[in-house]
């Protein structure tokens, strides 16, 4: 039983769960010339990018890795499917985590390590600043 037919369904479910956990999260956040499906900042200031994909976990890992230089943690987000084989080691080696989403919501299956090895602090700071501007613009447009 799969409740998510499209990536934006995954995105919305993820954003709701992140916000419920006290993180500030937005969809479609521009990062390094492309777009992170979801970007979030925890109360601690820790940042995370999420790449949502319905299938093709290998491609998801390489796309997610592009966010490593600008945030503290990076996750691939996919629907939970029976019999899907996605070796945890591939995510660990790629430096990204894996979140699976089902009717009960998102759950972390492979925790993301900190991206310290690839982090470029100035670009991280730029992303955080842009996040602030985006959130402000968004609330202005939707108020």
């Amino acid at each position: 039983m799969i409740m998510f037919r499209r990536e934006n369904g995954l995105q919305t479910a993820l954003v709701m769960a992140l916000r419920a956990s006290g993180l500030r999260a937005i969809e479609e956040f521009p990062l390094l010339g492309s777009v992170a499906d979801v970007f979030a900042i925890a109360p601690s200031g820790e940042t995370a990018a999420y790449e949502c994909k319905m299938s093709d976990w290998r491609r998801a890992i390489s796309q997610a890795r592009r966010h490593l230089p600008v945030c503290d943690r990076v996750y691939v987000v996919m629907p939970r499917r029976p019999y899907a084989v996605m070796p945890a080691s591939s995510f660990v080696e790629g430096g990204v985590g894996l979140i699976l989403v089902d009717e009960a919501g998102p759950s972390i299956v492979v925790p993301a390590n900190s991206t310290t090895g690839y982090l470029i602090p100035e670009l991280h700071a730029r992303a955080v600043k842009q996040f602030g501007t985006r959130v402000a613009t968004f609330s202005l447009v939707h108020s």
Partner: protein
Amino acid sequence: MRPIRHYLRLGTHAEKDYLLKLRDYFDGLFLNANLVESTSSSLAVFATTLGKPYVIDPITYAFALNPRLLMSQPKSGAAPQLRSTFASLIDRYQLPPDVIGGRPITTTDLASEGVWAPFVDAVRQYQADRLTEAIDGDAAFLTASSIDANLRLAPEMVIAAYFAEERGSYWSEFNRQSINRTLERAAQPVAAMLAYDSSRLSRTEVLSLATAYSQTNVEEIVVWPADLDEHLASSEELNAYADLVAVLASAGKRVIAGFGGFFALSLALRGLVGLSHGIGYGDKRDLQPVLGGGLPPARFYVRAIRDAVPMGDLALLSAKLDVDEFRRRVCDCTICGQLLDAGGVTGLVEAFTETEDRASARGITAVPTRRVYQMSRFHYVLNRIEEVSDLRQAESFNVVRDRLVEDADWVRVTLGSQPVEHIARWVAAADPSRAIGQ
């Protein structure tokens, strides 16, 4: 030194600036007849200012495509109309006007000598005269200097009218007659365009084409394996392309890749003597144009894998490099050099990933700035210029191969295997020690 002529294709007028700034670093200009026809005066002035030999691709193959591809789609919902540029080319090429617009042209339409011969002559004449004629017609440009300009405005060579070779040799007889007639009558050197649909012809069929074109009297052959994406193509397709070049070259032909990237360039070790490509994303052209879709995302050409990657991959590759390593491993072109001097590796990545917000139907979206597109295009062409220079001087194929493999190994560590998969296929196909057909 290995002779390789490096041609740049002008895709749009917006690209003129790149060619003018880089004019000392390439050998010639390729123009498509539709661009020439729509803006001949302006192109004549540009060609004169640039002062480079030029070649006009008559794009006659387009008239054998579905006519819908030659039409504009009015937004009002009115019936599509043949684009005025193509209507004008039909007239200038003396093609039967009643055929075009309703259906693709066929060999039957061109069966009679009374039809095909004037067409072939008009296509040759068009290339020889169109830009000079445009200058003559432009009173404002008729100054003393333009008299010299007129003298220099003849094309470097004319391309015989052509259609893409298909399975079953549908256009082969026409193409052969067109080459022969153009050779008989041209005042300039003549080139044949050997266009074929790479994904649909088998290796044996491509080899037959090579043999057939080897037997023509034309010396210059521009090869265009349409639909071949060098990075995604199978070994079968790449081997066929390499064999085609090798067979033609061994028959004494001067082979130029009409659209190509580094793989085509590496065929210089199998006898290729020229390469033409566009300014951005110009390593290939499909027979059927890709319509619409807007501006492609900005990408960064990573010379280590001879491919353009998303900007995020540039950041990933650069994250652990200092300035010297970046210059050595990634790029040391004028653009990158200036950015590195000003802000180090971080400053460079920041500059290439700059975006601005634009309102779109989906809300606000971030798009790369104009400067990002400009810098990445200059960087791309500067890299290609370096690559041509390297290939001209390469001592042997083994030197080229070893560098490709070593560079790919370095990239694999950070970006994984997928972005470097083409390298193994390339080196196997381009290897001059691989026998034809093996």
